[in-house]
C-alpha cells in the first residue's frame, strides 16, 4: 500500500464515521478533532476502523502523533 | 461543411437541388417564373429548367393548387408556391377538402405528395388583409402537416423533408426571415418532421415558439439571462404534428411555460399547446401558463400600431418576469 492509498483509506474512514463532513474540509495539517468537530468518540472510532483496515493499533500514548491527516499518513506508513 | 447564407438562398438551393435530382419535381405559382418569385426564391429557375417545370400561373389560387394536387395524385412532386398565406384562403377548399382527405376518401389508394409553400406573417405595413399568421389554422386539420422553418438550416432541410413525404405538407416561410442569415450545412442530416429543437437550454422557464418569433425569443433569452433568469427556448418547427414529448420534457424541467406566437390567441396554436400541457403535464406546472400573441385586432397599417399589435422582445421579457414572480 503506497502513501496515496493510505491517505485515501484514512479519508474514507473519517467520512465513514462522520458522514456530514465534506472531503474538502479535511485539511492535511489541521488537528482533525478541532477542524472537523470530531469528538473523542469519533476519533477513537476512526482509529478502531483504521486498525481493522490497516492492522496497525495506535496506543493512547501516541494519540498526539496522529492528530492531523498528514501525521496519520506518516504514522501508518511507517508501521505498515 | 457549413457556410453562412440567407434564408432565401437556402430555400432556393433546396428547390434547385430537388429539381436537379428528381424529374418529377416542378414549381408552380404566381410570378415564380419570369419575375423570379415574389420573394425572389426562384430567380433564374425559368432559364435553367424551362417553362414546363417552372410554371407561372394565373391569379387563381384555387385553380393552380387544385392542379398541383392532381399532379401529385398522378405521381408528380409539385411544389406549389402561394404568394402569401393571405391568398391561401382562396385555395382552402383544395387544401382542406381535397389535399388533406383524398388518401382517406380513396381508401388509401391515392396519397397526395404535394408541397405548398407560402410566406406568412405581418410587420411590413401591408395592412389588415395582408399580414396574417394563420398557420395555426392549418394545424387544425388532420391529414395536413404544417412546417414553420425559422432557421436557414431548416429553410433548406424542410423542402427536402417535405418532398420526401408521401402526404401534403404546408411550409410557412415568414417573409421577414428571407433576408436573415445563418449557417447552412447541406450535408447535415435533417431533424425529422415533428421534432422540436431546443435552441437554448434553461431551467427556469420554457419558451415555446416558432418561425420569426424564435429570433425575438432568443433576444429575450439573452436579456433575461443577464438578470439570472434561465429560459429554455424551444423552436417547435412543426405545428402539426406538435412534438408533445419535447414540450412535456421541458415543462417537467422548468415547471413554467410561455408561448410566443404571432397568431391571435383565440382558438390558436398557442391555445392548443396550453391545452395539451394541461392534459399531459398539469402537475408539473408551478405557475399559470402565459402567452405573448398578437392583439386581437385586424393588423393596423400604421407602423407604430402594427408594432404594438405584434409580439415584441420587451413584452416577452415583461411576461417572463410576471411568470417568475408568480412562482
Amino acid at each position, binding site marked *: 500500500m503506497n502513501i496515496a492509498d493510505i491517505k485515501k483509506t484514512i479519508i474514507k474512514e473519517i467520512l465513514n464515521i*462522520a458522514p*456530514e*463532513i465534506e472531503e474538502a474540509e479535511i485539511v492535511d495539517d489541521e488537528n482533525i*478533532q478541532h477542524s472537523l*468537530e470530531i*469528538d*473523542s*468518540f469519533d476519533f*477513537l472510532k476512526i*482509529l*478502531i476502523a483504521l*486498525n481493522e483496515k490497516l492492522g496497525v*493499533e*495506535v*496506543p*493512547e*500514548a501516541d494519540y498526539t502523533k496522529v492528530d492531523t491527516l498528514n501525521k496519520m499518513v506518516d504514522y501508518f506508513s511507517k508501521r505498515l | 461543411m457549413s457556410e453562412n447564407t440567407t434564408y432565401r438562398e437556402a430555400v432556393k438551393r433546396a428547390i434547385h437541388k430537388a429539381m436537379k435530382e428528381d424529374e418529377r419535381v416542378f414549381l408552380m405559382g404566381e410570378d415564380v417564373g419570369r419575375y423570379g418569385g415574389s420573394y425572389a426564391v426562384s430567380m433564374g429557375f425559368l432559364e435553367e429548367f424551362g417553362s414546363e417545370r417552372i410554371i407561372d400561373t394565373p391569379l387563381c389560387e384555387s385553380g393552380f393548387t387544385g392542379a398541383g394536387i392532381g399532379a401529385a395524385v398522378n405521381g408528380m412532386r409539385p411544389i406549389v408556391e402561394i404568394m402569401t398565406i393571405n391568398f391561401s384562403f382562396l385555395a382552402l377548399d383544395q387544401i382542406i377538402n381535397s389535399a388533406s382527405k383524398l388518401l382517406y376518401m380513396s381508401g388509401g389508394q391515392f396519397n397526395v405528395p404535394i408541397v405548398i409553400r407560402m410566406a406568412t406573417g405581418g410587420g411590413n405595413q401591408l395592412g389588415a388583409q395582408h399580414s396574417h399568421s394563420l398557420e395555426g389554422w392549418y394545424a387544425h386539420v388532420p391529414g395536413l402537416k404544417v412546417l414553420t422553418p425559422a432557421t436557414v438550416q431548416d429553410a433548406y432541410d424542410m423542402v427536402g423533408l417535405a418532398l420526401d413525404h408521401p402526404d401534403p405538407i404546408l411550409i410557412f416561410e415568414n417573409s421577414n426571415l428571407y433576408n436573415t442569415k445563418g449557417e447552412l450545412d447541406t450535408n447535415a442530416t435533417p431533424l425529422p418532421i415533428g421534432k422540436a429543437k431546443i435552441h437554448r437550454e434553461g431551467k427556469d422557464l420554457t419558451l415555446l415558439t416558432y418561425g420569426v418569433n424564435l429570433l425575438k425569443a432568443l433576444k429575450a433569452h439573452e436579456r433575461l439571462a443577464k438578470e439570472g433568469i434561465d429560459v429554455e427556448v424551444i423552436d417547435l418547427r412543426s405545428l402539426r404534428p406538435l412534438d408533445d414529448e419535447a414540450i412535456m420534457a421541458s415543462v417537467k424541467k422548468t*415547471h413554467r411555460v410561455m408561448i410566443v406566437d404571432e397568431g391571435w390567441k383565440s382558438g390558436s396554436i398557442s391555445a392548443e399547446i396550453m391545452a395539451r400541457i394541461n392534459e399531459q403535464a*398539469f*402537475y*408539473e*406546472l*408551478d*405557475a399559470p401558463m402565459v402567452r405573448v400573441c398578437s392583439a386581437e385586432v385586424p393588423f393596423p397599417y400604421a407602423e407604430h400600431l402594427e408594432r404594438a399589435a405584434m409580439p415584441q422582445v420587451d413584452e416577452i421579457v415583461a411576461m417572463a418576469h410576471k411568470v417568475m414572480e*408568480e*412562482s
Partner: protein
Amino acid sequence: MSEFIMPSLGADMESAVLMEWKIKEGDKVKKGDIIAEVETSKGVIEIEIFEDGIVEKLLVEPETECKVGTPLAIIHSVSERINISPAAKKRAKELGVDLEKLASQTKGTINLSQVEATDEKTETKAPTTDGMRQAIARAMSKSNTEIPHYYLSTSINMTAALKWLEELNSQRPIGERILPAALLIHAIVLALKKVPQLNGFWQNDTQEIISEINPGIAIALRKGGLITPAILNTQEMNLNETMHSLDDLITRTRTGKLKGGEMTQQTITITNLGDLGIESVFGVIYPPQVAIVGIGNIMDVPWAENDMLCARKVVKVTLAGDHRATDGRIGAQFLDKLDKILQKPEELL
C-alpha cells in the same frame, strides 16, 4: 394577515387596559365575535372583531394598558385563499410535506420551491429542525423562568484516574478502550447512588427521587442541534458497560435510531463540552429534572499538593441544581463524592 388594533371606544378615549382575552391563538373567529374585554374610563367594554379569520398571535398580555391603535392581535384572514401550484401539490405529496401547515405560514401562492424548501428543513436537518430549536427554546425558557437554579463548581484532580485509565487501555485492544468521558459518567452515576436527591423530578410542587439512574447525555449533531438521549439504567452498569452503552448511544443518535424511552426517561443531564476546550459548563436544568452536571476540558494546570506546586490534569465539574428540590449542601455532597470516587479509580471497574 391583518392586525387587530385597540379600537377607539369614544372620542375622548386615548387608551384602555386590555383586561381579558376571550380567544386564544389558533381560534377561529367570525365577524362580530367578542374577542376581548377592555377597561376604559367608562368601565369594562367588550370589543368585537370585524373580520372572519384565525387568531394567529396575541400580541398583548392581559392587564396591559394600550393606546388606541396599538396592535393587539394578528388575525389570519380566511378570505385570503391560498393557491397551491399543481407542481407544488404533486411534489408535496411525493415528499410528504404538510401543505396545510405550509399554507398557514404562507401568503399568496404556494409553489414548488417553497415545498422543496420545507422538505429540506425536515429532511437534511432531520432531528435538528426549527422544531427542535423551538422545543429547546421552550424548555429552556420554562426552566429559566420557573426553576431557581443554584450553581456549584469544583476542580477535580484527574491525574490518578487518567493514569489508571492509560494503564488499563494499554492492556486492551483498541476496540475495548475506555474514554475519559465514560469514566466520568460512570463516576457521576456512582456519586448519584450516594446522593440520590439529584436524580429525579420536581413535579406538582413535590420532589420525586427516581431509583433508575438514566443520565441524559448531551450529544451534538454535527450539522447543528443537540439532543440529550439517556443511557438507561446506568445504576446497574460497570465501567465497561457504561462505555459500551455510551458508544452505542452516540452512534445511534447520529444515525437517527434512538428509542422512545431514551428521549423521555432522563432523570438527570450530563453535558460535556470538554472536547471543545471549554473550561467549565454552567447548565440550564431540563425540567422536570432537578440537576445538570457540566464537565469541562481536562487541562494541565498548576496544582498545589503536599505544599508543592506541580502540574496536574484537572477537570472542572459544575452542578446546577433546582433549589426547590435540593439545597447547595446536597450539591456539595455530590461533588465531594464524585471527587473522592475519581481519586480511587481502581474501584471504578
